[in-house]
């Protein structure tokens, strides 16, 4: 899933400064799960913004709040159609994809990002998220025992560890495991160390040129909700 962090409160206040009527818009999917911009966070942020402006003796903003099922699908945004006409701006707590989908859907309304979209990852423990996929477009997890060196090695190198691994930790961040230590140990466990002995040529950064697009209509039934 996509993981994000809510922007610092003062930055959010700066973003909305020049707008009067603002919709704080949450997203019911990834942002809800990672706690950056679901219904609960929308409500908390809404409250905090109101308190901050009351304390400052500044009543220039009025706020609405709403959380859609998914901001990254245009059809889930239809419910906002009537509300948006009255707005000066939308403060989206969706990921970067959500923000852009909302912006495309409502071309006359400024859309402001309330979160910093950070990575695709999984929860390591409650409230701790770790990056797991860099969406490189050329998955090689079969060769690396299901542990991604592109994502989890600070250098994203393909032919084994650098010399900076100490106590199984990464030279760039001592809290993080050295991906190549993990890969070696798991390949050894699977009896597949020969995969690490192979030479891997330089990456192809053009697997899908940026901006990336995938066209695939197979298996999609027209008219269905597909989501």
């Amino acid at each position: 899933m996509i993981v994000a962090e809510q922007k610092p409160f003062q930055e959010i206040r700066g973003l909305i400064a020049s707008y009067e009527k603002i919709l704080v818009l949450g997203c019911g999917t990834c942002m809800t799960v990672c706690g950056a911009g679901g219904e609960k966070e929308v409500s908390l942020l809404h409250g905090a913004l109101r308190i901050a402006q009351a304390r400052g003796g500044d009543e220039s903003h009025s706020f609405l709040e709403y959380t859609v099922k998914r901001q990254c699908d245009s059809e889930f945004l239809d419910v906002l159609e009537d509300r948006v006409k009255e707005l000066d701006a939308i403060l989206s707590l969706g990921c970067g994809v959500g923000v852009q989908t909302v912006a495309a859907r409502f071309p006359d309304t400024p859309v402001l990002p309330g979160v910093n979209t950070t990575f695709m990852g999984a929860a390591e423990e409650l409230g701790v998220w770790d990056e797991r996929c860099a969406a490189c477009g050329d998955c090689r997890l079969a060769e690396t025992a299901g542990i991604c060196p592109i994502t989890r090695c600070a250098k994203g190198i393909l032919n084994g560890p650098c010399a900076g691994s100490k106590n199984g930790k990464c030279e760039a961040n001592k809290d993080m495991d050295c991906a190549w230590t993990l890969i070696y140990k798991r390949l050894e466990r699977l009896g597949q160390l020969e995969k690490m002995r192979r030479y891997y040529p330089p990456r192809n950064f053009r697997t899908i040129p940026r901006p990336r697009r995938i066209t695939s209509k197979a298996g999609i039934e027209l008219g269905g909700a597909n989501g």
Partner: protein
Amino acid sequence: MAKSLFEEKLNSDRFLVTTEVGPPKGVDISEMVHHIELLKDKVDAINITDHQSSVMRFPSLGGCLLVKEHGGEPILQMTTRDRNRLALQADLLLAYSQGIRNVLCLTGDSIDVGDHKEARPVFDLDSVQLIVTVRTMESGKDLGGTDLKGAPEFCIGASVHPAADFIEPQLIKFEKKVAAGAQFFQTQGVFNFDTLRRFMQYARQFDVKILAGIIVLASARMAQYMNDNVPGVIVPQAVIDELAGVEKGKGLQKGIEIAAGLIKTIKEANVCHGVHIMAVGRESIVPEILEAAGLGIGAHV
């Protein structure tokens, strides 16, 4: 014919000595030139570091040109941290055209340990792929498969970490570097003779020359700092204790003594093909280390 003076020396049976000179942060190159002048006739080749520890400096290529200009034999340290495959190949073309014929292929330290932490890490290639790149260019093609108008030739070096706390994956990578075409290795710092001997028992099966990396420590604090902060350096506690045991102000002297003693032991045991002395910002003490190790002028060159 040998590709470089240094390759010729690698092919001899002599015990080789290389050292490194770090370029300045700024345009005042006088100290670097002084170090080059001081060392060029005392060692077999001088490495010029490439933004060592990810700290922005005068470039390695520029330093190597100065080594050439002053009559020394340069080894171009080249990391893949800051340049993509186009820039790396271009610099190799420039280096060759200016008479630089030795290249040490490294991945490079992480951006996070340096002084430009917000910079974009490149790592388009890794060290093994850089070795393959040099060999590809020697065949007359670039990495895109296009013919080169004039192909370069290099004596290729690489790095290995005999003192790594988890050695098996490091050895796999070492073998990949050998297979890719590395001819010589300058190891990460080793402080313990037995560690080196164990590594060499394994490495002797490969047709490559190994120069043991010798880091000169100036104090127990520096040793501890390197353990905590410098990638690829693991100073054993015994060495830290030895440094901690001397009176204040005598640390560097002890460090020189330790380094010289280790070099002497390595040479006498004939365990590997030479040493690579890393004085880490104290290049001017290298002649003293060589004297103390019995490798002073006359004894060596």
